[in-house]
């Protein structure tokens, strides 16, 4: 049923390693991207026109940078950012470099996601908090982020699935993981069962992230259920 190539890959643990690499790149990139993207999204929100501390110039500059990176197709961004990866992690090949790419590509996306999640918080609740004498930091930490938590988790799930997709694409310039297996062992050597196996495994990983993430989002949301 399976081709020789598939059995060889399986028996040598290459597919298993690919699964692990995909998961590890996705999670690590997401984590790092959130460390930068979350504060960036908060700043975009609070300095916006309707934000708690409007700063039009800063907002416009950040908005421009974010839009700039978001408008470059990932595959081109990757190639363009190779020197940057080399500068940051010393290499322009392999997983370390790919993680830099994934972070650069997904941070602006995450920032916008966070910004729009925070926008969902009822302006009246923010006003009520202000009427109690909260300062802006307290509003961010005690009102905006906790009230937007379900939307933030949903956003994180969507971001992670996107990053997982990017990680597969990174195989074209030296990334590893299931994408790389699909391309070099499946596509280039005409073993369609290897390709389909990688697709199938990717679908399963996406499903797990999606279902688990939504379950947490629903569980933590106190608005709908008892």
């Amino acid at each position, binding site marked *: 049923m399976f081709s020789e190539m598939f059995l060889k890959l399986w028996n040598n643990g290459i597919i298993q390693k690919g699964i692990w690499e995909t998961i590890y790149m996705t999670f690590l990139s997401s984590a790092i991207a959130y460390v930068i993207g979350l504060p960036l999204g908060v700043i975009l929100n609070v300095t916006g026109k309707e934000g708690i501390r409007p700063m039009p110039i800063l907002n416009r500059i950040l908005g421009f940078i974010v839009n700039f990176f978001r408008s470059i197709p990932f595959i081109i961004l990757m190639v363009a950012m190779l020197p940057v990866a080399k500068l940051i992690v010393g290499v322009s090949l392999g997983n370390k470099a790919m993680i830099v790419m994934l972070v650069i590509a997904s941070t602006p996306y995450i920032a916008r996601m966070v910004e729009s999640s925070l926008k969902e918080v009822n302006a*009246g*609740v923010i006003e009520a908090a202000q*009427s109690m*004498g909260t300062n802006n930091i307290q509003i961010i930490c005690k009102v905006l982020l*906790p*009230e937007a938590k379900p939307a933030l988790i949903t956003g994180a799930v969507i971001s992670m699935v996107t990053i997982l997709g990017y990680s597969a694409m990174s195989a074209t310039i030296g990334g590893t993981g299931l994408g790389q297996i699909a391309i070099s062992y499946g596509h280039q050597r005409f073993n369609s069962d290897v390709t389909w196996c990688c697709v199938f495994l990717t679908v399963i990983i996406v499903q797990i992230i999606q279902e688990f993430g939504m379950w947490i989002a629903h569980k933590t949301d*106190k*608005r709908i259920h008892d």
Partner: protein
Amino acid sequence: MIELKNLGKKYKSKNLEIVAIEDVNLTIKDGEIYGIIGLSGAGKSTLVRCINLLEIPTLGQVIIDGEDITKISRKKLLELRRSIGMIFQGFNLLEQRTVIRNVMFPLEIAGEKLDKAKTRAMELLKLIGLEDRASSYPSQLSGGQKQRVAIARALATNPKYLLCDEATSALDPNTTRSILDLLKQINDTMGVTIIVITHEMRVIDQICDRVAVLDQSRIAEEGKVSEVFINPKSKIAKELIFPDKKANFEIHGGRRIRLTFHPDYSMEPLISEMILECQIPISILFADIKEIDGGSYGQMIVELPSENKDAEKIITWLTNSVIEWQEEV
């Protein structure tokens, strides 16, 4: 004491200037319940937000206990806001926090210790009658219960003033009544000065001591509720007191006068006496009774016969009676 002096607020956009409030002068004494009534768009919400500087006035002074708060530092302002509670039409509870943690929120902000804050919050929940819902979430409460929690939250830091921005407008009449009773009770027992913003006359009737009528960004008239009610001078006040009366009665030629019945005579059949004694028919265009400070004030608009002699006879009778009357224009 809160004094608003020559207060004004304008919003500027590129080619448009909108005046929200203009030339507002008010004094709100400690311990009273002060009502500000107006139609939507009159500037009520802006006005009440100028009191805790959620809106920064573009002109004039907001003097609280002798200090012009438009001039104090931001740090002092944040501290001052703890002495001015506020509740809203939309309740504005934190949806992801339990009831008790909502009430604890302002105490947390003020840096109160957790166990102390909890004790205080429980006290307040007892006051509003929701101590058994402490660990519920706002989404599990009814509108009236949410507003009660919002009141408890606003009172957590022991404020001297409480601002109510259309606090009962989203509630049904019975719930409105119970929330107003609670506010009255808070005013009586805790001595909190309450400022009520509303478009509903019944809110003013039921709890306010004094009222200001806001119309097109300005104060149209101001005074004790019973006085404004008996003798409204401005057109807007009349409209608010008779909300159902659309000013377009068919005029048959007769003069229209407005009669006000003082609570002391509410049990006497004054109109019947008038008709029987004068032997002249009148048509009643509008009638209403309102409870203010426990007394029933009646209002009636009648049309006199077009025959001048008959009309004069009734006027003479009225002038000698206990009924207050006024020509309706």
